[in-house]
């Protein structure tokens, strides 16, 4: 493999900057995606909220029953956790399909590739924003008051999105070249669901608690979920996600720089 050239690095950087600068375009495209999905349906995007709500009631009740925790405790816990789990897995899975599904655009117009990455991020944030209503209904009806750590909450959300962005970009690049990867990723994420404290509390793992401690997604989820539930994420959660974002982005950037120009050829 040839080494990285200076030009590859600067072009990748330009692509990244141009992608960020055209946030209006990616936001517009993402909103079109949502509209497209629900055209001609009467309820439209309300379906997003509704189906999430039904799922949460089912899972909340089931979790309280299976893991014998009080419903008023498990309901908001499951709801906040799943909200994030859907956000995380959907961004990564969309990432895997990213360049393949936009190949018509990539081979026909000159557009920074990161615009399409931003489109995936926006789209999933819109979906999550719909799902938040369900959490709000649960939180208000159970009178859950977020703790002071809620002040840091926006930073937690931003950090998690930044972290997910590189994960989506890496999967996108690899998936454009190797078409088995999207299916592989999907399977890995399906299995990871059971190893992430979503339906159960980490304490309930007992001596197997390391399963949650070594799961990077568990830390991402804790970072956003705990403040909502009135608890405080640990310093460890912050450090793990911060380190993942930094190291992940450095690696991803170099990887992107090396293969950016090849992506159009792979499609």
């Amino acid at each position, binding site marked *: 493999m040839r080494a990285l050239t200076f030009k590859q690095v600067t072009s990748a950087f330009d692509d990244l900057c141009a992608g960020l600068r055209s946030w209006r375009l990616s936001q517009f495209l993402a909103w*079109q995606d949502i509209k497209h999905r629900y055209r*001609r349906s009467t309820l439209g995007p309300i379906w997003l909220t509704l189906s999430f709500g039904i799922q949460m009631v089912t899972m909340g009740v089931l979790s309280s029953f299976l893991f014998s925790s009080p419903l008023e405790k498990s309901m908001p816990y499951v709801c906040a956790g799943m909200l994030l789990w859907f956000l995380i897995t959907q961004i990564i899975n969309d990432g895997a399909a990213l360049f393949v599904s936009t190949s018509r655009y990539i081979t026909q117009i000159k557009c920074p590739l990161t615009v399409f990455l931003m489109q995936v991020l926006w789209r999933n944030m819109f979906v999550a924003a719909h799902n938040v209503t369900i959490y709000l209904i649960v939180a208000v009806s159970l009178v859950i008051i977020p703790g002071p750590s809620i002040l840091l909450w926006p930073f937690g959300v931003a950090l998690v999105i930044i972290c997910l962005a590189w994960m989506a970009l890496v999967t996108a690049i690899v998936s454009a070249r190797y078409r088995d990867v999207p299916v592989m990723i999907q399977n890995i994420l399906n299995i990871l669901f059971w190893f992430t404290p979503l339906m159960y509390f980490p304490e309930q793992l007992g001596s197997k608690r390391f399963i949650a401690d070594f799961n990077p997604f568990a830390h991402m989820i804790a970072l956003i979920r705990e403040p909502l539930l009135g608890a405080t994420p640990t310093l460890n959660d912050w450090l793990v996600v911060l380190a993942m974002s930094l190291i992940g982005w450095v690696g991803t950037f170099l990887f992107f720089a090396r293969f950016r120009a090849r992506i159009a050829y792979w499609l």
Partner: protein
Amino acid sequence: MLSIIAKEIHVEFPIYDHRMRSLKYTFGLGQLAKGFNRFAPRNVNVGGQIGKGETGRIVIKALDGLSFEMHEGDRVGLLGHNGSGKTTLLRAISGIYEPVGGEIRTSGRVVPLFDLQLGMDLDATGIENIWMRGKLLGLSTSQIKASFEDIAEFTELGAYLEMPIRTYSMGMMLRLAFAISTAITPEILVLDEMIGAGDAAFIARADLRLKDFLARTGILVIASHNTPMLRQWCNKGMLLERGKLIAYGPIDDVIARYEKN
């Protein structure tokens, strides 16, 4: 000054099929590829040359060391047989395929217009599609607002603009796509075949709009087999054959050369 300067550009396509594209292939079945060379065309004028790339992979050499310059006011018609590299060159000029060797430098914003209907959503209304296409063509919100009336009026679609374009006829859809695409002012315009709005009754108006659109364009590069059309719109011609540049000069000379083959 607008310009396109290409120095010794090479574009190669690695061949992947479903087998080679999977991980399985990379880890051991690479030998299969060797058989491919047996099918390499010899003494045939169609397609790029098949050869080995730097990493030993089978590649199609779509562009093989092209050098040329284009400047403001140039209207270049690209000629060549199927697979001679016309579309690849258009995409290289547009920055979609970055050459594996050599360098292509463009000053000015390049607008490739290959598929006028790219990004249009059948279930969205005409108006929504004007926004969608406008955004994809790189227009800002205020620019779309400014040219909206002009586009709407040109299409003569009236109340239909409020309807999903699923209800349009082919001709109406083309008309809409054409109207939006010709609303921009491209510095460098890249076309694969001449764009048009079909519809016989409409052709005179479309021609007028097209003439105006191309006159606003700084540099035009267009690929086509239609020599009378190229004579009408172009002042220069470029002939490609199997990824190599055969001739570049006044359009009439290059067409004569093309027709001799």
